[in-house]
């Protein structure tokens, strides 16, 4: 318990400390208008690459369209590469063709920054697929999120133009993600992660048996996997695999990398909209909810797994089932909370084996999807909650609600509520359909509430663009591939486009002047209001489903 707290403090503390300068740097990278002449030269390079498309100044509609068009191309590219991998180079182990629905699912999964994997990388994918189709998307999908946040913030700052998507994409990819990934990959290699394009190694064991050891360009893949809130592993076991995450130190580095960009996104938002005090409140609320979840996980994982409850073994080590002990108990208790809170979705332990209420903590992270959330998009999700909180709180102070000096009216409320509705709808309806039919019933690994949790988790992960799997679910079927593929695609772009429309609508309004009578979005009272709004509108929707899954299982074990 103490070790867990210490580790949590160290990881979160260093992530917070590092996020501040990174947020400043990201604002510099994404908002060249405020930076110096040296910065302008870099933009000339990007403008040359983007060509004519990079010159137009875009309103929210054009920006959203550019984003969709680019992502459509990226999706098609990824789809083609995966579908034709058996004919493409860099395939030393001769990986065969993939099934059609899996190709769709994997392309959708990586283009949406979800990285939900219905395959095991070392078994099914060539190095070319891993690097060119997937790793490339891990960069651009994260860059898309950061770009969208920059556009949103510009709209809220009252700028007439939301910028240019193609410029923002390059700024985020080349100036932010690439340097960071190089740094983290180097550290990973130092920590023992392999980086090679040679095929699998062969070894003869002491018994004389032949063993094939999968390897590859792992360090590069893992670095952006963590930094870009992607989470898709090079190997099937993801960060539980000793090559992806060799030891305690790479594990700690991974956790900091997981939190870094989502945290810095909040600061970047604050800088671009020009209200750091507000950003501090938002950051504080996210942090508080994250810490609450961590505390919950530490508490519930401190109890032994129910299967061992009556056995004559030590009961004070907590739940060790499905955990890699080389990271220590602290290293594996924190990880699921951080990865589900940030829409990262990489795993270093079996989520299926978590105690039921810890599983609930993980699912809560995906349901809220804004306690730092994905790169860029986590802050966009939080913006939706903020607008609704402003609407409710603004009325309570007796004025037409205002956010960043613009009135929040019908259109903003409608779009915000729709965004919220979409997440709930996809998780609940998806789960309902699969729980009611053989599509889901035939694929669960366990009976009772645990099986229900498996289905619920899978749809939560897809809808939140998280990408982690509860596992235990036979999800490589066509219905799972198609359904979660569609959910991922819709829930990637709906929660980006609708908030962009909100920002567009807000920026077109007359500025209002703040006064003593205006709701402050910079104080503790508003923070309390925001937490209330997130919990009421974000979490209450899922309480009945949670009751039938993890909560029921928890009380069954308590008997």
């Amino acid at each position: 318990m103490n070790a867990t707290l210490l580790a949590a403090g160290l990881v979160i503390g260093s992530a917070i400390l590092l996020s501040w300068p990174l947020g400043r740097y990201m604002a510099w990278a994404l908002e060249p208008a405020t930076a110096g002449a040296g910065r302008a030269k870099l933009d000339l390079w990007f403008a040359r690459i983007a060509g004519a498309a990079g010159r137009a100044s875009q309103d929210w509609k054009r920006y959203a369209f550019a984003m969709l068009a680019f992502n459509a191309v990226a999706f098609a590219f990824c789809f083609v590469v995966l579908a034709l991998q058996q004919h493409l180079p860099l395939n030393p182990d001769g990986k065969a063709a993939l099934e059609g629905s899996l190709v769709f699912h994997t392309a959708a999964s990586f283009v949406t920054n979800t990285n939900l994997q219905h395959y095991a990388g070392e078994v099914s994918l060539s190095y070319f697929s891993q690097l060119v189709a997937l790793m490339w998307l891990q960069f651009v999908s994260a860059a898309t999120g950061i770009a969208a946040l920059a556009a949103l913030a510009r709209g809220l700052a009252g700028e007439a133009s939301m910028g240019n998507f193609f410029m923002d994409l390059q700024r985020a990819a080349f100036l932010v993600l690439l340097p960071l990934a190089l740094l983290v990959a180097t550290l990973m290699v130092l920590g023992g992660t392999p980086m090679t394009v040679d095929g699998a190694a062969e070894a003869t064991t002491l018994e004389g048996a032949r063993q094939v050891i999968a390897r590859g360009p792992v360090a590069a893949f893992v670095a952006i996997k963590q930094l870009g809130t992607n989470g898709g592993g090079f190997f099937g076991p993801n960060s539980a695999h000793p090559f992806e995450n060799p030891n305690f130190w790479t594990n700690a580095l991974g956790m900091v990398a997981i939190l870094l960009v989502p945290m810095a996104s909040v600061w970047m938002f604050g800088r671009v909209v020009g209200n750091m005090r507000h950003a501090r409140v938002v950051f504080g609320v996210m942090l508080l909810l994250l810490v609450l979840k961590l505390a919950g996980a530490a508490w519930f994982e401190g109890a032994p797994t129910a299967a061992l409850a009556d056995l004559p073994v030590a009961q004070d080590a907590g739940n060790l089932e499905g955990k890699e002990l080389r990271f220590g108990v602290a290293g594996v208790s924190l990880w699921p909370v951080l990865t589900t809170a940030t829409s990262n979705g990489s795993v270093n332990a079996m989520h299926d084996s978590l105690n039921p209420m810890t599983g609930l903590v993980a699912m809560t992270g995906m349901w809220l999807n804004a306690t730092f959330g994905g790169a860029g998009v986590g802050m966009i999700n939080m913006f939706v909650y903020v607008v609704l909180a402003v609407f409710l709180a603004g009325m309570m102070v007796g004025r037409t609600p205002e956010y960043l000096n613009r009135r929040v009216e019908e259109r903003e409320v409608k779009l915000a509520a729709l965004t919220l509705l979409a997440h709930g709808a996809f998780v609940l309806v998806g789960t309902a359909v699969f729980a009611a039919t053989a599509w889901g019933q035939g694929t669960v690994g366990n009976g009772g509430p645990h099986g229900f949790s498996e289905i619920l988790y899978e749809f939560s992960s897809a809808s939140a663009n998280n990408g982690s799997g509860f596992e235990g679910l036979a999800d490589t079927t066509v219905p799972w591939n198609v359904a979660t593929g569609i959910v991922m695609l819709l829930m990637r772009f709906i929660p980006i486009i609708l908030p962009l429309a909100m920002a567009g609508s807000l920026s077109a309004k007359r500025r209002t002047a703040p006064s003593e009578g205006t709701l402050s979005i910079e104080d503790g009272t508003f923070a309390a209001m925001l937490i209330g709004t997130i919990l009421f509108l974000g979490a209450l929707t899922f309480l009945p489903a949670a009751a039938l899954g993890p909560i029921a299982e928890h009380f069954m074990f308590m008997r």
Partner: protein
Amino acid sequence: MSARTPLMTRQVFLASLGATFAKLDPRVQARNPVMFVVWVASVVTTIMGLCAALGVVEDAGRPGFVLAIAAWLWLTALFASFAEAVAEGRGKAQAASLRAMRRQVQAKLLPGRDHKEVRIVESSALERGQLFLAEAGDIIPVDGEVVEGVASVNESAVTGESAPVLREAGGDFSSVTGGTRVLSDWLVVRVTSQEGEGFLDRMIAMVEGAKRRKTPNEIALSILLAMLTLVFLLVTVTLLPFSRYAVLSHGDGQVVSLTLLVALLVCLIPTTIGALLSAIGIAGMDRMIRANVIATSGRAVEASGDVDVLLLDKTGTITLGDRQAAAFHAAPGVSEADLADVAQLASLADETPEGRSVVVLAKQRFQLRGRDLANVPHHFHKFSAHTRMSGVDVDGRCLRKGAADAIRDFVRQGGGTWPEAMGVLVDNIARTGATPIVVADGARVLGAIELRDVVKRGIRERFAELRRMGIRTIMVTGDNRLTAAAIAAEAGVDDFLAEATPEAKLALIRRHQADGRLVAMCGDGTNDAPALAQADVAVAMNTGTQAAKEAGNMVDLDSNPTKLMEIVGIGKQLIMTRGALTTFSLANDIAKYFAVLPAMFAGLYAGQGQAGPLEAMDVMRLHSPESAVLSAVIFNALIIVALIPLALKGVAYRPVGAASVLRRNLLVFGLGGIIAPFVGIKLIDVVLAGLHLV
């Protein structure tokens, strides 16, 4: 009308009951998505209850239980309709009293140009632009503008003020209101609004709710509520397959019944605010009318809560309106008593409030009684715009008082000198915001009277309150900068506009609007019309001209410019009530979940003869699953009734900054909204169990 009517009278209650049932028409209910869901839920449970009673369906639940749920769902819908009906009923009661005096009256139409011929017609036959005659004792048939004549009019029917008012052609007192009575003399009036379009009619339409259109903030909130209803519909609908899965995978248990799902749905959707939303809007309008202000739209009422800047006329709003003598300043070598004596003599004939105040001050300070000059030969000089002096010639002395430069000329003409010290004195008085009146006895200057605008008592505190609410006050006056600055400082306004012209006023409003502020002002004259039209909240005085009334979006029947502050408060209270009840409604859901979910899921994953594991969620330890669900539904219905008075009165409102208002409302309605239903549901459960009803 100005009398404070109680929240609910017997008549209002009875009339509302009838209207309540009429509102259960699904076409009426469909306008409010939240309550429409309740209506559908009531129909569904009723049918299920009947089917269960007849034995047609088996898994709906015990017939008595299902019918009890159905009955309470119907009550929920009824309570919501009742809330709206009461709000409307209170308005209708006011409208009825207005309409009583709105009865058909005879009008004396003047068809010819020469006004010789008088034709008696029904008031409804009058058309815009026609002229009619109103003589002493007549009731003015419709709203109009005086084109000829002067008369005193009793407007108590509209304003509640019994003192008669003067109405005359031209100027700022030229408009008359239908339903008021001419007391003396006669007027020729041009019809400005037809029967059914006048102020009274507008007022009636607004309070009755017939013409009520949803305001922007109300629309936004309605959308949020509709969306939340949709979310909770999804939440409950998916519970059917979820529970079916649980039964299937466990091989045992009870699928959640439709009755329970419907009950949960109604508990979760924001029925409290959904039921009270339109009542809140009507009540806001109603409060405005109780303050004797007629708004032309609900939008204007709502906007008044957003006001950032108040433009207030100095005279009548900030100051009492009349300048009063405040001090005597004697010239060198003159005693103050001598000055006061002459000043009093010179003012005896001055019937203006200023003149009278000089007499009064002299009496107070030096016990000088107003003398009777009847026995002495004397000659009064009245004030004229030409001489700008007044006074009296008595005993061969020429006593004068007047503006400094007028007296200076007078003294010089008499061969006297204008002392240097006098100029300094006059400037000093002016600098403090007062008006100097110089007194002379022939060619000798005696000193000056300081006339001072008296700032209303308590106005400074009101402005401080407004400042805490984030509202800036700007004093508008025709005075020069020096005077204006001094009064502004004394009254504690944030800013002032001196030597105000209509153009300057308009420019000031535009400047504030360009900075993103909402501006409120009041005005009465025709020259105020452009500024009124530009302001976001524009209150025209009822005594004002037709042009001013048409340019504004509210009319104050009391013609009291101080009313602006009350109007702002009413607007804020309206939005605040909406926000508070929405928060309360949402916060209630936690307790309802904890009451209904364990009851619903009690039969899932159960062992042999045991309750299911989710019984552990029953933190309230309710009597039985049926009692738990019924208690939640009953609480959900009763809370609507309990909150009707709050919806009608509005939440308590104090003029403090936004931060403390939010903190307070969040505690009362947020935290209170979480705790109250836990207590309420448990209490109802205890009662139900105690009475052996479940």
